[in-house]
């Protein structure tokens, strides 16, 4: 096997599926499995986990001999979106919807390198007010608009 002509990433993805399937099946056995006549809560998950592990192997089998594929993996968009969403989750109930939304928009907006700060901030304020009107005043979602620390 020539390592330059092997799509190792594809194998790694297949391995993740197989390991998830094995873990799932193993966890299922800690619940009552039962029998065909009276299947317990672990019975069906055990089958599903096993099936998933096998399908991971099938995907790996299919990948053999295929040249590596170029994958455009970019960390910046993930980091920007993830930090924005986590910030929103942390701020929504403690500081209120408006600051949470503004922080989310600014942080996630950083994912795009050529963004303009001024227009991003304008969008942030506009969406924060629109969202508050629609969801909090309109639909009664139980969040504060702004909450000051006690």
């Amino acid at each position, binding site marked *: 096997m020539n390592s330059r002509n092997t799509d190792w990433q594809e194998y790694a993805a297949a391995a993740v599926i197989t390991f998830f399937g094995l873990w799932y099946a193993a966890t299922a056995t800690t619940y009552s499995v039962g029998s065909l006549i009276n299947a317990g809560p672990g019975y069906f998950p055990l089958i599903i986990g096993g099936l*998933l592990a096998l399908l991971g192997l099938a995907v790996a089998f299919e990948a053999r001999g295929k040249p590596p594929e170029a994958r455009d993996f970019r960390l910046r968009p993930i980091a920007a979106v993830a930090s924005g969403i986590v910030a929103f989750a942390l701020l929504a109930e403690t500081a209120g919807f408006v600051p949470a939304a503004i922080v989310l928009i600014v942080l996630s907006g950083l994912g795009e390198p050529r963004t303009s700060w001024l227009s991003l901030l304008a969008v942030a304020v506009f969406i924060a007010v629109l969202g508050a009107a629609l969801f909090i005043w309109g639909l009664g979602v139980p969040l504060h608009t702004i909450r000051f620390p006690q």
Partner: protein
Amino acid sequence: MSELLSGILLGLNKALSLEPLFFCFVGVTVGTVVGVLPGIGPLAAISLALPLTYYLDPTSALIMLAGIFYGTQYGGSTASILLNLPGTATSAVTCLDGYPLAKQGKAALALFVTALTSFVGSSFAILLVMGFAPLIAEVALEFSAAEYFSVMLLGLIAASTLSSGSPFKGLAMVVFGVALGLFGTDTNTGAFRFTFGILEMADGFGLVAVAMGLFGVAEIIANIGAPRGTVIGAKEITFRSMLPTRKEWRQVWMPTARGSVIGSFIGALPGAGPGIASFMAYALEKKVASDPSRFGQGAIEGISSPEAANNAAAQAAFIPTLSLGIPGDAVVAVMLGAMILHGINPGPNLIRNEPELFWGLVMSFWVGNFLLLVLNIPLIGIWVRLLSIPYHLLYPAILVFICIGVYAADNSVFAIYVVLLFGVIGYLMRLFDYPAAPVLLGFILGPLIEENFRRALLLTQGNLSVFLTRPISLAFLILSALFLVAPLLPRLRGIGRG
């Protein structure tokens, strides 16, 4: 016949009353906007609208959600034609000939033809829904747990092996979805499964959070920083330039008819939806064309057939959904989830127990499609302008709506972390060509398929042959086997040779 007529009257009465009419209009308008804008599809839009419908009467809620779904099928072709970037995944093939047409200065013609063929495809499929859904429901009243298990299995297999790409990856994703669907409390015994002592996990992952993660957030991550084309031909759209010549009319009509039939058939299969339908319709047109080399250079058949097909499939997807309670597509699966949230029990009893809901919804399809024709022909200029909104300002705003939407679904911050988790998983799946729609279908059908599996075995004292001895169940299993084996055959032959 008189039953059909009274159903139509009942439905028209409902669909044309003020509230449903208003929400139908809202639905198709939102659908058009979402369809036109690349980077947000029907799944994200419907999941986003789902928490908003908690406050509506169930019929109006479903009319609006359905309007978003079929509305996106109209809007999706606009970006394909003008930007060479599909507005929704189901309009991807329309790029192949739509964009070359726009480059030749025929953008207006292409937009007109796709709107018209979309309408024809939808109309054909709505007639089928009206005719067949009640009949199928009648037959399905005899279904026992074994038949339900088998038809759901058929849906899951069709969804995974019919999609383009590796059938193994499709199958792995459908099983992954089933696995995720089983997280939370076991409905039969009340046992907690895969909850890891987290209180919020007792109900499993939320449907809205999983759908918005896999389709909304993942799409956004993938689209950030991606190169964007420029809109062409938007200025020269006048009504006069829209109208096809007599020769072009002749070229359009047969492909539209073929696309409508293929789309309706694929759409009516449980699990297979508009995306697959449009690809198949395009492939067929290329095969029957007298000069296949015209395809990809701006062949008008290459846009009329797939656009008829994806609309027909979107409407026909309601046949299994409304008659069996088995979703015809991942998007409709979310609508099925919406029904359950509204306390409506999907299944063969639906049409009998809730005739006003069924006929009201179906007749609203007619209303919605007429509205879409107006929105997409005379008013097309408005939507084209939407394409000039810069994406770097649009996606942060969409993220806010996603976050508040999942929070509103069950007032919990936990759901926001779930949406992020599935956003990252969905992005990685895209990178490695694992399809996301089967995950969602498996997620929704997983608990149901387990329940029917266990019930069928309980009733027969653990006799597995029950799935084979009941004729309807056997028929579904044979079909499932066909769908399973057919796409694998060419690969297996390759293995035998290599």
